[in-house]
């Protein structure tokens, strides 16, 4: 018997011992399929039952609480200018790595546009810009999906990460993001990587002192496009 069969058999045997009412394997299998099919929502914190605008403010507050910065702009044109401004403020070169996300083509620049490097990161980049799939207001979390549009390496290798989010994609809870992901990728399917990011990387492994900038970015700037 393979280990697979052996383990499954043992589980069945152990479970049978405790059954008070007899449930057949078929019934148990049906219960599993039903739960996966219906994926019932549990308890959703009431904190995000807010108007659209307040949901946005709540999101930004939570982003800031996670030690990241947050800026709301009116359009993609303005988002580009905000990127340039952020780079200047932090004394960073006007050189950024991005993926092929179409929405990034709409970024507007003032004066000289920054130099754009396109494709995954090899670890040499100081600044990467990605577009989030969703934002979760509950905790100020950004939901990033893998693919050439926004390669996953951009989320972890640079020292400074700038994430754009369209307010249209702002969700109340994680559960809302799951629903949207199902719509986009199909039932019981996900892209290779879904990163839920809340703040820049950190460690407290030396005497429990919190230090920002562990293996991932040291600085995270979130720009929300709130097109009226």
């Amino acid at each position, binding site marked *: 018997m393979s*280990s*697979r069969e*052996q*383990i*499954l058999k*043992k589980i*069945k045997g*152990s*479970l*049978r011992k*405790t059954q008070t009412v007899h449930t057949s394997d078929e019934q*148990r299998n049906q219960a*599993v399929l039903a*739960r996966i099919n219906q*994926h*019932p929502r*549990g*308890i959703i*914190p*009431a904190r995000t039952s807010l108007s659209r605008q307040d949901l946005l403010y709540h999101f930004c507050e*939570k982003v800031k609480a*996670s030690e990241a910065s947050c800026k709301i702009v009116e359009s993609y044109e303005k988002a580009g200018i905000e990127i340039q401004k952020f780079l200047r403020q932090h004394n960073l070169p006007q050189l950024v790595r991005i993926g092929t996300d179409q929405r990034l083509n709409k970024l507007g620049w003032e004066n000289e546009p920054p130099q754009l490097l396109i*494709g*995954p*990161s090899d*670890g040499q980049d100081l600044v990467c810009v990605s577009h989030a799939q969703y934002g979760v207001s509950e*905790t100020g979390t950004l939901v990033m999906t*893998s693919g050439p549009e926004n390669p*996953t*390496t951009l*989320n*972890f290798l640079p020292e400074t990460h700038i994430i754009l989010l369209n307010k249209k994609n702002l969700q109340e*809870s994680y*559960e809302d993001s*799951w629903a949207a992901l199902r719509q986009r990728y199909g039932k*019981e*399917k996900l*892209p*290779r*990587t*879904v*990163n*839920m*990011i*809340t*703040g820049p*990387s*950190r*460690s*407290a*492994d*030396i*005497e*429990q*002192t919190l*230090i920002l*900038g*562990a*293996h*991932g970015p040291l600085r995270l700037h979130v720009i929300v496009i709130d097109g009226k």
Partner: protein
Amino acid sequence: MKVSSSNFKSNARQALDDKQLQSALNHVRNNFISKRSKARLDLPEFDALRDNARAIKDHTLEHLDFYLEHYERKVVESGGKVHWAADAVEARGIIMDICRKTNAKTVTKGKSMISEEISLNEFLAANSIIPVETDLGEYIIQLRGENPSHIIAPAVHLNIDQVRDEFRKAHTHLSPNRPMNEPETLLGEAREILRGKFLTAELGITGANFLVAETGSSLIVTNEGNGDLTQILPRVHVVLASIDKIVPTLEDLAQITRVLARSATGQEITVYSTLSTGPRRKEDEDGPEEYHVVLLDNGRSSMLGTEFSEMLRCIRCGACMNHCPVYQAVGGHAYGWVYPGPMGAVLTPSLIGVDKAGHLPNASTFCGRCEAVCPMRIPLPKMMRSWREREFEQHLVPPAHRKNLALWAWLAKHRRLYRLTTGLAARILAIRGGLSKRINKLPMAEGWTKHRILPAPEGATFMKLYRRRLRKGR
């Protein structure tokens, strides 16, 4: 990892005498508890979520076989591979096989308690493969040749001087006069060195906080981002997880993660929660080309359906140890195996046998705080008591203990004699305590008084007072 749980008593004695360790343990006492408590207050639904998390996990365990099969099907559909391992030997063999096929020389690792459970690092090193721990705490203790002393803060037993010394010894290519005073510079140094490893490793091994049956995904949570670099940069990603990590759906996952970070570090959510599903897709330009899951049983299927089954709900948040007066006093290493604190006191005998786990189920004051804070509402004290009973039944309790217990039991059954003895003892202790009313040393209980001062009993025994009050009609 070598088991030294049966030496709990002597381990604990050493720990109590270790001044450095005692000062490091203050971080546990001060930090974790207040942070969790604040996070709990900030979320009014916290306790309701705990109940739901518990119900989800109970349901999952009752249907574990079918959830595992569904999970496997989804991993395969997404292009990944599932390897089932009955025990540590089999799991190590599977991993070695994948390493060989990958031609791996360096393996980066995200934090994984299962890897500790199967002593993977020692095994890889013995087979000429260099394992590199990438979580800062794990990296530090790997340099020191130690095991983690806490399931979420592996180096919590160390202070900054020890880390500095270790880095000086290990990073000899750097100037010995470099500034190393601040924790920031030490972290920067580790980041620099590990960055190189991330980019050259051929294979990355991570654990999994959860496996999602619905989508065949593994979820890891980290604050450092090391787990993510471990799984996206090397050509091959291996997930090492035990069969109890399954949750049914993404919704169920969200319920449980809401209580996980809050109970662990007091964060609302860990910085990175990453779902990985299979290898990179056709259109992807980064991510691993192969995705393997090693599903380990190692004794868990036999825990199902026993009085210790509820332990399989554990999500490894560490709250029970943070709040445990015994853990706070002796730290994690005294427990002598992978899992310390109350969860370790229950899990260790379940996984390696009560004969080897020795005193662990006794390493408790039965104050009940662990159960009170456990997000999955695991009745830890009850289970520790069950182990004690089994230990006693199997005659694993040392003869001296058995004799004393038997004597006490006999005495307790003889009311008058019992009262006489306890009354006498109280008076003797009161005299011994003298004016200071304190006892620093007590024959036959040196182990107890060595690190504590026993207040001398004042006045009469409870029964005497009780009778006096009855007489006064109060």
